[in-house]
């Protein structure tokens, strides 16, 4: 009886001890966190933060081609961040004065708009090469790549007669099945006008009413308005759709796999991405050095072989293999079939177009 009582008491003591130990660990952890997390944020501020537009293999191409070599070259710790081109975030960051980002990749339309609204710092150092494509170096930024939105389709659905233009995309009878398009009026309005017979050199200023009328004809056949870069490829592979617009880099990534997805450069929409330094950044000179470093032909060539987007420094083509060159937007044959999205027009009309787009899409 006595033995049982002692054993019960011991068990009770052990249980109590474990309880107290558990609680004290949690408290210690809490205290550690409160001191730790705040200081770790300070460490990040002292290194250079590079923000890529989009993640995955595109972010990797920046890390392998630009960030790692620059880190090796200068010894500065580089951080790679991704963002979804949320212009609002950038604007708000700059207006608040709290700018944790040092170099940001923006779209052409955002570059024009941001320059107008005074969101960027002037570069301190510029690339010296003379083989840059026209209008790709500015006081406030240097362009990185030309990327394209192409029309992609499933080979299995159309083994004999492949679609070749946006007219075919709109032709439900000859090419039946569901389609997908990017959930943004930019690009889609141009594709609609091309399908309606507008000449590729006379797209701008856009006849918006005509474009929406043309889009109405295909609206019921659009199964998905995709908003993630990987979606169109997945939808084609899942057989949810037969045709879609897609970013050429995603298709480039499949080039070594079995040919299931075809695409065409006819009527492809090309856009430029720019490196800029947001106003209020703490390291303007170092950021400028990074931008210049990223514009070296060897660096750009390395990026092109990884991601399939066209470098703006044509000197880089010397370092790229021929079969990869043919897949780039800036390859002459592809360039001739495509058009460049007019960033000026879009920077002025983006907000209005977006509202109209949302209303139209959800009706």
């Amino acid at each position, binding site marked *: 009886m006595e033995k049982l009582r002692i054993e019960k008491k011991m068990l009770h003591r052990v249980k109590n001890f474990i309880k107290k130990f558990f609680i004290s660990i949690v408290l210690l952890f809490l205290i550690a966190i409160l001191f730790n997390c705040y200081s770790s944020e300070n460490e990040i501020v002292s290194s250079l933060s590079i923000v890529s537009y989009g993640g995955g293999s595109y972010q990797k191409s920046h890390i392998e081609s630009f960030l790692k070599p620059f880190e090796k070259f200068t010894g500065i710790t580089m951080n790679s961040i991704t963002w979804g081109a*949320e212009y609002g975030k950038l604007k*708000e960051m700059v207006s608040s004065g709290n700018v944790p980002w040092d170099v940001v990749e923006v779209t052409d339309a955002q570059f024009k*708009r941001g320059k107008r609204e005074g969101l960027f710092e002037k570069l301190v150092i510029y690339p010296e090469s003379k083989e840059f494509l026209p209008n790709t170096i500015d006081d406030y930024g240097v362009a990185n790549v030309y990327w394209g939105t192409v029309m992609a389709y499933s080979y299995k659905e159309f083994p004999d007669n492949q679609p070749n233009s946006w007219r075919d995309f709109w032709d439900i009878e000859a090419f039946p099945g569901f389609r997908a398009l990017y959930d943004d009026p930019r690009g889609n309005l141009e594709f609609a006008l091309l399908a309606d017979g507008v000449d590729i050199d006379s797209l701008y200023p856009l006849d918006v009413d005509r474009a929406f009328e043309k889009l109405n004809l295909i609206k019921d056949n659009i199964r*998905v*308005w995709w908003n993630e870069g990987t979606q169109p490829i997945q939808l084609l592979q899942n057989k949810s759709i037969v045709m879609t617009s897609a970013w050429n880099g995603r298709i480039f990534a499949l080039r070594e796999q079995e040919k299931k997805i075809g695409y065409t450069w006819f009527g492809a929409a090309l856009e430029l991405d720019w490196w800029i330094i947001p106003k209020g950044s703490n390291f303007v000179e170092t950021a400028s050095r990074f931008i210049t470093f990223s514009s070296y032909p060897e660096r750009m060539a390395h990026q092109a072989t990884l991601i399939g987007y066209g470098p703006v420094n044509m000197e880089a083509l010397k370092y790229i293999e021929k079969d990869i060159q043919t897949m780039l937007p800036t390859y002459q044959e592809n360039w001739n079939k495509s058009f460049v999205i007019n960033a000026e027009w879009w920077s002025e009309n983006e*907000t209005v177009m977006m509202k109209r787009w*949302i*209303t139209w899409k*959800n009706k």
Partner: protein
Amino acid sequence: MNKIKVILSLVPLVLMFLFFWVPIIVWLQKWVFATNTISFWPDSSTRTLLLNTFYVASITSLVSTTIAHPITIFWWLASRRYRTILISVMMLPLFVGLLARNYSWIGMLSYLESTNISLLNIFSDQHILYTNFSVVLVMIYIFIPFAFFIIIQSFSTIGFAELNAGKTMGASFFESLHKLVLPRTWKQTIISILFIFASSFGYYVTPRMIGGGKNDLIGNLIWRYMEQGDLDSASLSALILLLLLVPLYVVSFILIVRWRRRILGR
């Protein structure tokens, strides 16, 4: 000693005021009323989406609560082991995570489509994914546990003694259910409907992932405005959303206070 009691009881109220209401006031002052042109009449894109949002939110709230109510009755009547099992089933989705669950629905529905499994020919083209139906289905799936945990509040206050007392006085099981249980639980049911309605009104994760861009809700619009840099429009749309929900707030507050006074005596 009284001072300590008062301080202890004021701490949560002060925290809530500082952490919630102050940011709301700052937001209103900074991004809503700071703009020059304030128009409370929503533009065309907002109006279109408000209708769709109202439709989706109503169906989600009504169906989730309708499904959760009998489940709560089951919980109330069940033995202890089955109560535990049911609670675990309800809590399992919380552990797995919201994004993972949305993805699993995409995966399951894509798999069904790619294997051409006909779902009783309900849908003419056997496509469920990227439709309004799939958005509502997944939102119902997400909100059923919330409805359950809200309604369970009222059932936990009802003991079997009352039902047994009714039985001894000759009432049938359904009469007891109807006259003793439902009057004490209907208010919590209404609160559940209102809470889920309010939550799904600002929802954008599921419509973005499952909706295929064709079934946007007002939350997606606010998100878009943020991306565009149009913080003023985002805040204005959010304010319209808020104004529409204020009557909900008032009704639920009255219901909660009266229910608590009646049932809990305070």
